[in-house]
């Protein structure tokens, strides 16, 4: 762009320069032309003027000679004859009559006889006169002087006797030159032109007032700078012209330093006929100059304007052109960049296609490998099943044999089914059909369930299991519980698979504030084992589907390699991350971090009295977290790490009289076991103090032993704050306190008729009883179909509300609701239908709403909530009924 700009500017400047040059050139040219024009005008003008003067002169001459003729005639008729005196008289009278300045007779010898007026003192061109008279020229004009004045002499051949006896050859008829000048209009001050009349020798006959010199030559020499010739040459030219009776023109500069004059002049000279005179007409450029200059100026101005207008027009055109060009350029640019990016895209597309192809090939390969691996994994148990079935059939009578075969068939079957489940999950993921269903989830419940599930297997493997929870900011979160279970179980089952007997498996859960904001909590889950670990390179492709570490150890264990891929997918879908740390031979740690949305819970104030509680556990972590939770609950916790220490502390406290309100002892302690500790304490202190056993393991196995030792209860790990609260609360026997906290305002739902659809008879009974207690009339239906029929058969507005269990045989709650809503009766659309769901994540709340339900309550039914909901939804129905 810059270059273009420079070109443009350069061009403009060039144009400006050219224009200026042209302008100045034309200016100069015009100047010169003007000069020439002026001169031409001057010349023509002068010519005209001179012509005019010449005509006047001729006219005057004509008149004068007529006058002279009349004088001649007069003389002839006068009868003067030859008498000179009479001749003189007559001539004198005539002259006086004609008001001459002088009238003189002249002889051939040059003798002059004055007939009238002052005598001629001198002649201006005596030789000329004499010659002309001698040659018989009819009209001769010349000049002369009397004593008084300068005169113009009109001479004519005139023969008359003179007093001296000679016969005149000519008559000199004279008038004052001033008169002549006047008539000739020679000294008109208004005229632009001024005149000289000069004699043949360039001496002045008539000249301007200012003239100082005697003759023109001198003038020329002194003041004149002719154009093109030197002054001398000019003079010569003049003389030539005079001599040849031709016109003389010259353009000059008239310089007079004394007056600081330098004017341009044109000179025109022409002979006056029949005289020895030459008329010089001179016009100074001054006047012409002004006019011409003005003309020149207006010419220049108009030219300038024209030039500018042209320039502007050119600029405009140029500008438009530039704009067009620029637009074209940008379009071109655009097109070019479009083409470029298109080609780039094409290139990228090609590369992407290449990459996709390579990927597809790799995936195919992996699938192929997987299939071949899997076929082995499928075939082995299938073979076992077939084989075992055959054997069993053959030994049908041998019960033990058959039982053994069946066991093996069962195992193989489970294996196969695990495989199938994984594959199904994987294909669901790959076709994008697996979506998460987050629902309110109790982490406590989840962890408890998980522990329950894995404990038996871990025990069977002879492995050690522990569970740690720390810093739980929110127990209730939105999460897909099913999938979360899947993730944890997957990690745990891997841990169980790859950890040897006696190894440890630890499950941890902790939370911290989430960067996503107040409504979220960052939740960490970790499964750590002391198993065989994995190599660095395998860790990198850990989550790739169908991959398993290819070595002897791993091949010995069963698996499809799909589990972790599925887990990764789930965690990714939750927006979380998985980290894996592992050392071959030392163990593995799977760590999942995910930001979960908190379920806004109605924080029931979990408060306990400030009981002194002793926590005994060999894990300092657990002691710390439990103690924190207990403190938050309002109690005064103390901790110790061994049974021996616990015994000491308890006895000490008892001695002081400040015994502990309750003891929480871990089952597994270093040194003295938990049970043993409890026994010892019981031995010393009797059964006053409640002792609760805390353990990650199953109560059932140790129940007898524990009971015998005096342990009064069992708190399973994980020790959530709510777990501690609930368990310890029992001790105070204030279970009803919670019920007492419920809102005083009891909703009035008396008089409502409810249709209860519930297949579980116990639930139905309880619900009915609750409702009847509050004054409602309840009718029960055992399944959806019956509920639909009952409603359809009922009169309009009979039922005020329907409580619909969702899981029922024959027709479930959703279907029943849809069908009820479809009925053609007014109350079918309006009757409130309340869903009862057993679990938070059983049914999709959306599905309920879509089917036409108005609300849903979780089972086990909270009475107050039920009443509130009914009160909210049913009064409408009641209003209708009463109207």
């Amino acid at each position, binding site marked *: 762009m810059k270059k273009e700009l420079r070109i443009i500017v350069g061009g403009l400047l060039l144009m400006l320069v050219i224009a200026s040059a042209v302008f100045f050139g034309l200016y100069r040219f015009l100047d010169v032309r003007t000069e020439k024009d002026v001169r031409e005008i001057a010349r023509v003008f002068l010519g005209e003027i001179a012509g005019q003067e010449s005509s006047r002169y001729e006219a005057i001459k004509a008149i004068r000679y007529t006058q002279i003729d009349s004088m001649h005639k007069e003389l002839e008729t006068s009868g003067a004859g030859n008498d000179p005196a009479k001749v003189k008289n007559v001539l004198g009278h005539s002259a006086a009559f004609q008001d001459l300045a002088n009238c003189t007779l002249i002889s051939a010898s040059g003798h002059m006889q004055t007939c009238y007026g002052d005598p001629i003192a001198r002649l201006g061109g005596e030789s000329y006169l004499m010659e002309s008279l001698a040659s018989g020229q009819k009209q001769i004009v010349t000049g002369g002087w009397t004593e008084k004045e300068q005169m113009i002499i009109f001479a004519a051949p005139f023969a008359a006797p003179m007093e001296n006896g000679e016969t005149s050859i000519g008559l000199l008829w004279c008038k004052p030159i001033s008169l002549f000048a006047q008539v000739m209009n020679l000294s008109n001050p208004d005229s632009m032109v001024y005149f000289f009349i000069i004699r043949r020798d360039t001496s002045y006959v008539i000249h301007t007032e200012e003239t100082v010199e005697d003759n023109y030559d001198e003038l020329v020499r002194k003041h004149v700078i002719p154009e093109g010739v030197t002054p001398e040459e000019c003079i010569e030219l003049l003389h030539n012209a005079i001599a040849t009776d031709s016109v003389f023109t010259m353009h000059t500069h008239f310089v007079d330093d004394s007056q600081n004059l330098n004017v341009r002049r044109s000179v025109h000279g022409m002979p006056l006929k029949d005289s020895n005179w030459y008329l010089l007409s001179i016009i100074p450029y001054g006047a012409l100059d002004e006019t011409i200059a003005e003309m020149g100026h207006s010419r220049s101005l108009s030219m300038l304007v024209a030039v500018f207008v042209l320039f502007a027009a050119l600029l405009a055109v140029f500008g438009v052109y530039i704009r067009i060009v620029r637009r074209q350029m940008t379009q071109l640019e655009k097109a070019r960049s479009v083409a470029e990016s298109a080609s780039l895209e094409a290139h990228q597309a090609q590369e992407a296609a290449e990459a996709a192809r390579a990927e597809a090939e790799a995936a195919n390969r992996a699938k192929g490998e997987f299939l071949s691996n899997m076929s082995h994994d499928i075939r082995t148990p299938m073979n076992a099943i077939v084989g075992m079935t055959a054997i069993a059939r053959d030994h049908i009578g041998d019960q033990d044999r058959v039982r053994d075969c069946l066991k093996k068939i069962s195992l193989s079957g*489970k294996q196969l*089914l695990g495989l199938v*489940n994984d594959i199904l999950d994987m294909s669901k993921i790959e076709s994008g059909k697996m979506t998460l269903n987050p629902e309110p989830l109790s982490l406590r419940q989840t962890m408890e*369930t998980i522990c329950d599930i894995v404990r038996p297997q871990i025990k069977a493997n002879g492995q050690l299991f522990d569970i740690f929870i720390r810093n739980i900011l929110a127990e209730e979160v939105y999460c897909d519980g*099913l999938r979360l279970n899947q993730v944890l179980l997957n990690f745990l089952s891997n841990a169980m698979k790859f950890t040897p007997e006696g190894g440890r498996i630890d499950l941890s859960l902790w939370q911290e504030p989430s960067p996503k904001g107040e409504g979220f909590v960052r939740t960490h889950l970790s499964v750590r084992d002391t198993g065989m670990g994995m190599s660095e390179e395998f860790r990198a492709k850990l989550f790739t589907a169908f991959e398993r570490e290819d070595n002897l150890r791993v091949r010995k264990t069963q698996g499809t390699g799909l589990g972790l891929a599925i887990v990764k997918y789930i965690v990714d879908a939750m927006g979380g991350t998985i980290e894996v740390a592992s050392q071959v031979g030392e163990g593995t740690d799977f760590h999942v971090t995910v930001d979960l949305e908190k379920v806004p819970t109605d924080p029931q104030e979990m408060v306990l009295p400030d009981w002194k509680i002793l926590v005994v556990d060999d894990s300092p972590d657990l002691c710390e977290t439990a103690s924190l939770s207990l403190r938050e609950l309002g109690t005064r916790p103390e901790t110790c790490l061994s049974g021996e220490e616990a015994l000491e502390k308890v006895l000490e406290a008892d001695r002081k009289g400040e015994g502990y309100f309750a003891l929480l002892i871990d089952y597994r302690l270093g040194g003295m076991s938990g049970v043993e500790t409890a026994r010892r304490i019981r031995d010393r202190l009797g059964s006053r103090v409640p002792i609760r056993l805390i353990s990650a393991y199953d109560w059932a196995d140790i129940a007898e032993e524990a009971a015998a030792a005096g342990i009064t209860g069992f708190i399973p790990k994980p020790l959530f704050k709510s777990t501690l609260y609930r368990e310890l609360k029992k001790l105070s026997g204030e*279970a009803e306190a919670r019920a007492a906290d419920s809102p005083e305002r009891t909703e009035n739902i008396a008089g409502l008729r409810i249709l209860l659809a519930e297949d*579980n008879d*116990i639930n139905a009974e*309880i619900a009915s009883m609750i409702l009847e207690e509050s004054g409602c009339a309840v009718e029960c239906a055992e399944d959806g179909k019956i509920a639909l029929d009952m409603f359809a058969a009922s009169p309009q507005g009979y039922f005020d509300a329907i409580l619909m269990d969702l899981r029922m045989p024959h027709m479930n709650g959703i279907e029943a609701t849809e069908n009820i809503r479809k009925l053609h009766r007014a109350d079918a659309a309006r009757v409130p239908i309340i869903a009862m769901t057993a679990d938070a994540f059983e049914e999709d709340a959306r599905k309920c709403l879509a089917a036409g339900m108005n609300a849903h309550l979780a*089972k086990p039914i909270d009475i107050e909530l039920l009443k509130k909901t009914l009160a909210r939804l049913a009064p409408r129905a009641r209003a209708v009924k009463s109207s």
Partner: protein
Amino acid sequence: MLTMEKLKSWGADVDDGMKRCLNNEAMYLRLVNKFLQAASFERLPEALSAHDLEAAFQAAHDLKGSAANLGLTPILGPVSRMTEQLRARREMDYEPDLEKLLRERDALKSLAE
């Protein structure tokens, strides 16, 4: 004869259960007795051996609901686990839980006599 103490010693959360029954002890005990006779206790193992996971789920779910309502924790534990796995129609070994479930039921039953 089933009593509150016996229930408690068996491991039930009687307070929870009572609350649901509006603290009507008679009703509560009656319902517990009724629960022990529930058909689902037979249907569940039947369905499992027939590999009818659908039916098994229904049965387990049924038992879970009642157990939860009555605060029968020792039964609730295993049946709850089974319900969740069955909900996903997961093929796995339900034996341990089923065994436990039935054992607890039997224990309670014997207490009721």
